[in-house]
């Protein structure tokens, strides 16, 4: 059977399976288990109403348990075993990790990423959103800035490999250096700063996301508060920082933490650009290097990542809920 055909069949089975499930389950509930007739009609209707949400949630809860909760528990359990998975070694994997220089470096770099990328992406996003708001061609500018969002991290990394390429005929950085009469260099190998060159890629991708959300938030600010501030004598900077930004603070926080969570998961960029060499290792790519060689340690890294992401995640969800109210 051709893969295309297989795909189509899967989609059909999936969609009609879902529809069929909801239809059949509802029918069963209303007609057989709690029928809306007979002596207990009122009680039956109430019970059916109480049960129905669970009926609809059931597939999602099942899927989440199987694909989310079980792996978390399973990973943690696996991280307590040795490389082959046969011998229980308690917290030894974690001990070994924290003794490892590369892991410590990855932890530090990751912290750097988590601070710089969300801050920069949110800042640039906000800047673009504000600056393009009144422009006639603002929407075109926005579309262009949003476009990197559609590129995969690997694809983006490949593009930026060209930007950073050592050959002045290819890499723009070295082209500029060449123009200034300087020798070509490899930005990717400059210790410490190369981290920032990699971050630039993710910032480039995420600025569009921040811009779209913040632009909508800026438009939601009541025009009158801005006009009142103009009459009160605020200059454009005061208008922006004292009137507009505080009013969209909730959205800024949500954008910020959303990008933070993403940053803590990204490995593709480092993996593609440097493979974690030259002091650019971060936790997810470090995990990738351990995977299949020592699954015990790799899962330990995974658990560490989860522990780091969790508080940000909870904070993010709280903020988002607050925004919705």
């Amino acid at each position: 059977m051709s893969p295309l055909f297989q795909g189509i069949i899967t989609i059909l089975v999936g969609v009609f399976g879902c529809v069929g499930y909801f239809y059949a389950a509802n029918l069963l509930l209303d007609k057989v288990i709690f029928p809306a007739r007979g002596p207990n009609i009122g009680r039956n209707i109430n019970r059916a109403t109480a049960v129905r949400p669970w009926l609809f949630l059931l597939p999602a809860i099942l899927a989440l348990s199987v694909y989310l909760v079980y792996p978390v528990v399973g990973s943690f359990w696996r991280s307590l075993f040795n490389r082959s998975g046969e011998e229980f070694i308690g917290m030894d994997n974690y001990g070994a990790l924290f003794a490892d220089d590369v892991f410590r470096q990855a932890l530090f770099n990751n912290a750097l990423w988590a601070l710089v990328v969300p801050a920069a992406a949110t800042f640039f996003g906000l800047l673009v959103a504000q600056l393009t708001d009144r422009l006639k061609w603002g929407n075109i500018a926005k579309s262009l800035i949003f476009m990197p969002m559609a590129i995969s991290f690997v694809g983006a990394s490949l593009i930026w490999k060209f930007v950073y390429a050592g050959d002045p005929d290819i890499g723009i950085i070295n082209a500029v250096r060449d123009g200034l009469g300087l020798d070509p260099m490899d930005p990717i190998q400059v210790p410490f700063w190369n981290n920032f060159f990699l971050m630039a890629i993710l910032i480039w991708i995420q600025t569009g996301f921040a811009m779209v959300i913040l632009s909508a938030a800026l438009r939601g600010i009541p025009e009158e508060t801005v006009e009142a501030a103009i009459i009160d004598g605020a200059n454009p900077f005061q208008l922006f920082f004292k009137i507009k930004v505080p009013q969209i603070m909730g959205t800024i926080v949500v954008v910020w933490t959303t990008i933070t969570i993403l940053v803590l998961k990204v490995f593709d960029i480092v993996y593609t650009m440097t493979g974690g060499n030259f002091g650019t290792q971060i936790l997810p790519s470090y995990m990738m290097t351990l995977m299949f060689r020592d699954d015990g340690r790799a899962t330990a890294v995974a658990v560490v990542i989860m522990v780091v992401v969790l508080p940000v995640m909870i904070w993010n969800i709280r903020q988002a809920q607050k925004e919705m109210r």
Partner: protein
Amino acid sequence: MADLILKDVVKSYGDVNVLRDINLDIETGELIVFVGPSGCGKSTLLRMIAGLEKITAGTLSIDGQVMNDVPPAQRGIAMVFQTYALYPHMTVRENMAFALRIAGQSKEEIEQAVNAAAEKLQLTDYLDRLPKALSGGQRQRVAIGRAIVRDPKVYLFDEPLSNLDAALRVATRIEIAQLKEQMPDSTMIYVTHDQVEAMTLASRIVVLANKGIAQVGSPLELYEKPNSEFVAQFIGSPQMNLLEGEIVETGEQTRLNLKRGGGTILSHYPSKPEDQGASVKVGIRPEDMVVAEGEDYAFEGKVDITEALGEVTLLYFEKEALGADPVIAKLSGVHSDRRGKTQRMTAAPERVHVFKDGVSLLYR
């Protein structure tokens, strides 16, 4: 001394002309009310005075200084918006202090100004609350407080009370009137849809219509001597009845024959000999209609509906044609029993207005 002068002011958005030929002298200490049908440009005019909209042509001067290109903050104006426009992330105190902080005043000065305004508006207990923890009336008072703190020469209000419920509207209206009395040197310009607000607050009312000013005058002037059919019908509620008529006797007073119902009536409006036989509109306010006692009557019609409001009763006469405005009479007392009966009405000569081609005979 005329304080705020609009001279030949025009406003267009691109090719669309919204206002033209606006000429208005507003004196210091006046409370001017802009009224007019929705979309006639009241807000636009107010926003041009505030500096939020560019003036397309003509000049605006305040205290002798041309203000066309002066930024809003330096015009000596403060504006109160219909939606309050409080800064949601600032407390009441910070809201009121914002302009002064921007202007770089000292902490003590700001503190003093804010406290004084808060006291005047009974907001002292709420100074540390955020706007969302205030009622609509309190929010509106904060918005007014924010204006007072700046001690402007001119206060601009754009329908400040229309988001409040009826009772609160009356209370706040009275507060604004009292506020005005406490600040006799401040000029206020007030936009409203509400007739009662206009009549009670205004020292002068400006009726806007058809992209321009229809009439300017004290509330009673507009009520007693409207210069056109439009103003006559716009001021007063229910609106003035306009009846087709013909001038049959000219002079110091004018005698008119009414087309419908066939009666005659005398108006104190003077007319010229050449007006003899002209068709005109005879305007009688519902509250000026009285039941004709003797042989003389102006209007005869069948009462279609009565609305007894307690102190008055509204009689709606049968419409002459579908879609026409019904003739309405407002009689004091309860008169529900007149429903379905044919009734003869008249009015005192000094209460009868005459319009020829839409314009009052008094203003030719």
